[in-house]
């Protein structure tokens, strides 16, 4: 509670929080705001926005409701962003914790795997992975995770290495605590904050990556995504530019919201502990 209070005191945090709260609200309420399948054909094709009250943002090439697409697209984008970031953090924490705690050959092997994933362009990997596995939401999430887990893993390992020799860990060893218990109870809580600090940028990067994949035709065809709306609209960019511009704006506003929240969090946390590490590390999505 304290943190949220502090967060709301920073202008970035407040604005970001509000943007995201609205977007999450829309995503959760999508089926209420715009019931039914957002991909169904709702009217005439290519109705311009703000001309038909029943279709406030107009329709696309096939007559699908753009407003419904944007509302339901919020759900897909946020879901994919959150799921991929969560998966990357959990995987990264796990690998980092094991590598840092076990050291020796286990550490060496795990870190080479981390290296491998860090030196391969993440988007190239995601592109190949989705093309090969077929586009569906779980595959897209997995593909984004593959390109994102290495940073949190490295960060966690560094944290663990610095914590391992601390007194309270040594004490725990002395009283005969099981290593796994030490890892989870003593080290994990301390290693968590820096990783969580980059979580927001992981979410933003995941949202952007999903959009880029959808733009290249590698999104789940059974759900609307902003990226696929932009790609669809691209064919009529000249005559009906809103079809690409509206979902693009929705995407940008969401990502700005995530960044602002992350800045606010950093400021709010700055009073509490060490400066944030690895800010914007994962930022550059295509």
């Amino acid at each position, binding site marked *: 509670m304290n943190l949220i209070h502090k967060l709301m005191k920073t202008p970035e945090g407040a604005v970001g929080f509000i943007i995201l709260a609205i977007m999450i609200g829309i995503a959760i309420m999508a089926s209420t705001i715009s019931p039914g399948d957002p991909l169904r054909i709702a009217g005439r094709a290519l109705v311009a926005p703000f001309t038909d009250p029943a279709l406030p943002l107009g329709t696309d090439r096939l007559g699908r409701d753009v407003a419904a697409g944007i509302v339901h697209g919020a759900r897909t984008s946020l879901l994919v962003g959150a799921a991929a970031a969560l998966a990357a953090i959990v995987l990264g924490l796990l690998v980092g914790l094991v590598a840092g705690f076990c050291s020796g050959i286990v550490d060496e092997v795990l870190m080479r795997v981390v290296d491998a994933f860090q030196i391969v362009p993440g988007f190239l990997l995601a592109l190949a992975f989705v093309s090969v596995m077929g586009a569906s939401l779980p595959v897209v999430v997995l593909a984004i995770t593959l390109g994102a887990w290495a940073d949190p893993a490295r960060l966690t390992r560094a944290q663990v290495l610095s914590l391992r020799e601390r007194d309270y860990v040594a004490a725990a060893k002395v009283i005969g605590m099981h290593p796994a218990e030490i890892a989870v109870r003593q080290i994990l809580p301390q290693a968590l904050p820096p990783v969580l600090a980059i979580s927001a940028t992981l979410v933003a990067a995941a949202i952007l990556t999903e959009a880029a994949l959808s733009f290249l035709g590698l999104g*789940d*065809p059974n759900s609307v995504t902003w990226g696929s709306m932009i790609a669809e609209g691209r064919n009529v960019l000249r005559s009906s530019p809103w079809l690409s511009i509206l979902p693009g704006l929705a995407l940008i506003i969401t990502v700005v919201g995530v960044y602002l929240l992350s800045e606010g969090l950093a400021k709010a946390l700055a009073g509490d502990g060490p400066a944030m590490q690895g800010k914007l590390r994962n930022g550059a999505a295509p």
Partner: protein
Amino acid sequence: MPALPVSRRQILQISSLLLASTALPALLAAQQAPAGGRLVVAADSEPKNLNPAIVASNGVFFIASKVIEPLAEASFDGKDGLQPRLATAWEGSGDGLRITFKLREGVTWHDGKPFTSADVAFSALNVWKPLQNLGRIVFANLEAVDTPDDHTAVFRFSKPTPIQLIRNALPVVSSVIPKHLYEGTDIATNPANVKLVGTGPFTFAEHKPGEYYRLVRNEKYWGKDQPSLDEIIFRVLPDRAGAGAALEAEEIQLAAFSAVPLADLDRISKVPGLKIVSRGYEALTYQLVVEINHRRKELADPKVRQAIAHAIDRNFVVDTIFLGYASASTGPVPKNAPEFYDADVPSYAFDTQKAEALLDEAGYKRGSDGIRFTLKLRPAPYFNETRQFGDYLRQALAAVGIDAQIVNADSAAHQKAVYTDHDFDLAVAPPVFRGDPAISTTILVQSGTPAGVPFSNQGGYANSALDAIIAKAATTIDSGERTKLYNEFQKIVATDLPLINVAEWGFISVASDRVLNIADNPRWAVSNWATTALQP
């Protein structure tokens, strides 16, 4: 500047074309047919094997047909729908065992060697029959090619082979390659497959991978005063949405094969200096087909297939997905093949109530969630329109209580899933009609094709009556009788619905007003472009 000899008929065609595109002043220029100039054309792919004698596909022909010529080309008004190219006359024997081709004299290869009947014999026996994707079917019974003199080639068949089929297939299967460059080499890996040597109006100059192909005027071409252009450049623009912008920016002068998305045509048609031409693809009709996996028990029921046919609003497909640049199909043979087309077949009007009634009758009632059953739908990824139709079909089926889940895959995965693994319930396919049912539409319903062959019947459908008709037509010499068999074929397919034919479409060219003669035969986009001209 010598004027091109233009027949009266041609002028009429050109003028009607130009009238259609409201570019009246250009008519005069067309008569004068300017010579010279560089035509820049959008190309969306770079085939790794450009040899049309081995790979008879439109992607290859688009570029290679300017360099390597067939024995005959399709024609709007010629005898048998053909105009002579390397052959000047052809005649079949009454028993269907021999076809005699008279070959053009005075033709030389681009490397200066003379073109003779030996080249034709070599191409037919060593390339078309054993290696070519379509020639393997058409020339399956070709036994020998006699060459009594340098300009006569006699094809001998072991079984009666319909001359009608050979004629219809000629433009596609008969690209002649030079014997002197291929004999004694591994034909599949011969360097001439990528650096083409032919007899056509243009010679192959260079290929810059990822950027362009360049063809230049063949000064020694046999056609009088042909070609008009000095140079053709195929600029690689893999991204379809880029072609429209490049046209408007005057970086290219022609985008064929609907390289400009249909959705953008309405706007493009209003851009001064650009014209939209929908002619020149009459012999390249693509068919929008719903393939059905008859292994699914629901789909094995003809009532369910009829219900699906009734659930599809063909008008919506034609008007909204194809924006009017298509027509609704009635059966497996398109209207553009008047020789075979039969309109007198059962039809399935858009009627969701009837569809629901049929599904109820078949015993598949709506469940508490409104769903009768769930299907896996795989739209082919090759065209925007097949994907969009997949999106539409999902919605159309939802309206009658069938939940279709779309599975998107790239080309290779789609091919494997549908044609090898049969991992689909419904699939959307765009097969091409190649002028004769024997080499196109029949393989989609004929049984007995092994798994792994693309664009063949992999839905597990088997109908011995239909198979018998197809087999009989393959060896029926008399054209009238053969046509009757194919009329019967259309009736059975439209009644039993082994697959559902939804629409058929040709492509659209968008060109600068300066480009002339861009639709003077029904396979124009994949013909030799000897008459195509560019106003300065």
